[in-house]
């Protein structure tokens, strides 16, 4: 499995090197929007030192962590997901279905998006600096890393579920941006939202928890919500796997 993944990564790298300008531009735009987030945060906190107990550094920690999760998902899975919708709609899955590999994971990890690696590394370095100022205990730091990994799993599962819907409905491509919009809206302190919205996105679709939980571990405020997000992510992954298998039964080849 690892050997196959290495080949897929090498192919992705070769493709990236072919479109060097695109790579540089995509990385630049990632940095640009992150910078806008930083400036906007700076404006908010120029009027008040804290918002619901979050100071500017905590806020930076939150948006940087949210970006870290988002770029890690983009680096590892987004190119595979974009490709998968086309493969399903064009009826081109035959070759991968014939291979002696797990088709779910083969398509999920079909390509890595190297331009996102640049922004991922940059965000990682900034987050490292922020964490060094927040001084989380080693246990909290470990749980921070766990929470980020759970977050990547959650974003992957949401997108996988959306993408696999292509087996049943075409023309849903516009909906594929919804998980991204949801995660963008979740990159804020949960408490700014009215109670109903908080409960909905902390417990039912825990996108707010996914961004807020690691940030809380970062500034030494451990929370049991991590267990809940891990559980929901696990359930979503199982759902996406079952959906994939059901989808394959609906699949019509165009070859």
């Amino acid at each position: 499995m690892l050997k196959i993944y290495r080949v897929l990564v090498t192919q992705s790298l070769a493709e990236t090197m072919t479109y060097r300008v695109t790579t540089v531009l995509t990385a630049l735009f990632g940095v640009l929007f992150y910078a806008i987030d930083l400036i906007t945060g700076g404006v908010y906190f120029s009027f008040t030192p804290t918002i619901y107990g979050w100071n500017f550094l905590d806020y930076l920690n939150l948006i940087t962590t949210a970006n870290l999760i988002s770029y890690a998902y983009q680096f590892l899975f987004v190119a595979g997901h974009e490709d998968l919708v086309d493969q399903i709609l064009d009826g081109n899955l035959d070759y991968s279905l014939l291979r002696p590999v797990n088709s779910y994971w083969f398509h999920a990890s079909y390509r890595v998006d190297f331009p996102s690696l640049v922004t991922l590394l940059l965000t990682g370095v900034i987050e490292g600096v922020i964490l060094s100022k927040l001084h989380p205990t080693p246990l909290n730091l470990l749980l921070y890393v766990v929470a980020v990994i759970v977050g990547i799993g959650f974003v992957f599962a949401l997108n996988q579920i959306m993408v696999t819907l292509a087996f049943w409905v075409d023309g849903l491509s516009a909906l594929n941006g919804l998980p991204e919009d949801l995660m963008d809206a979740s990159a804020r302190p949960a408490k700014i939202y009215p109670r109903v919205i908080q409960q909905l996105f902390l417990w039912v679709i825990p996108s707010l928890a996914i961004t807020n939980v690691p940030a809380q571990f970062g500034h030494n405020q451990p929370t049991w919500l991590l267990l809940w997000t891990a559980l929901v992510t696990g359930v979503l992954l199982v759902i996406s796997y079952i959906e994939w298998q059901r989808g394959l039964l609906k699949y019509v080849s165009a070859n």
Partner: protein
Amino acid sequence: MKYWLTCQNALMATLAYRGNLVLNLLTTAVNVMVTIFMWLAVYNFSGRSDIAGIQPNQMVIYLIVVNVLALIFSAEPIFKFSGLVRSGNLSVVLMRPINYFIQSFWDYLGRGLPFLVIYGLATGFISPVFRRGLLYGLGSLLLMMLTYGMFFLMITAISLCSFWLVQVWPLRPVLSALFLLLGGQAFPLQVLPPAFAWLIYNPFSLAGNQLTLLLLGKLSLNQILLAGGWALGWAVVALGILKIVWPRGIRSYEGVGS
């Protein structure tokens, strides 16, 4: 009359893709909600009822209106023109007995019409603009039209880079970012320190920030005149660029597509 048909077609195109329109509005609504809740929290914790002359309820209206304006002032003509140059179909357009720029303007108007109607209704019902005397009302209307024309000319001037660039897609995120930051979509530019006051008269701010403040009744007649003057200035600059660059672009245009 022939251009009016273009406008109608563009409007129909916007309304025909209802799914896209609804999703576009939904995404905008979510973004606006996020920003509104964040600003309300800022008001709450700063203990201020007024930030840069804007009260919390006015900030809510500001954020909604500036996002509607971001939909009105789209950069779509750039990508349409780039498509024409790349495919070589610009030749067909040039042979028609029409002025491409006038047609493009009516197309722009038609595409943005649903959002323009929303802005117009908000101006008519919420805003005090038309209750401050004839001169103020006329000045405001003139500023709106001038800014709209200026922004279209500016986008059109930018679109001419398609003659030399194969791919113009990178302009999409750049222009979104500029509107977000310089257009006052992320926050009203008035909240910035006085050292940044000069930013208010950039084309994006005139289109987003200033037209929203106008709707809120925050601009004095003098400020309207000043904004109008700047809009006119930018429009002249854009026209100048169009006049100089268009003939050069046409000379370098091969007409066969890529």
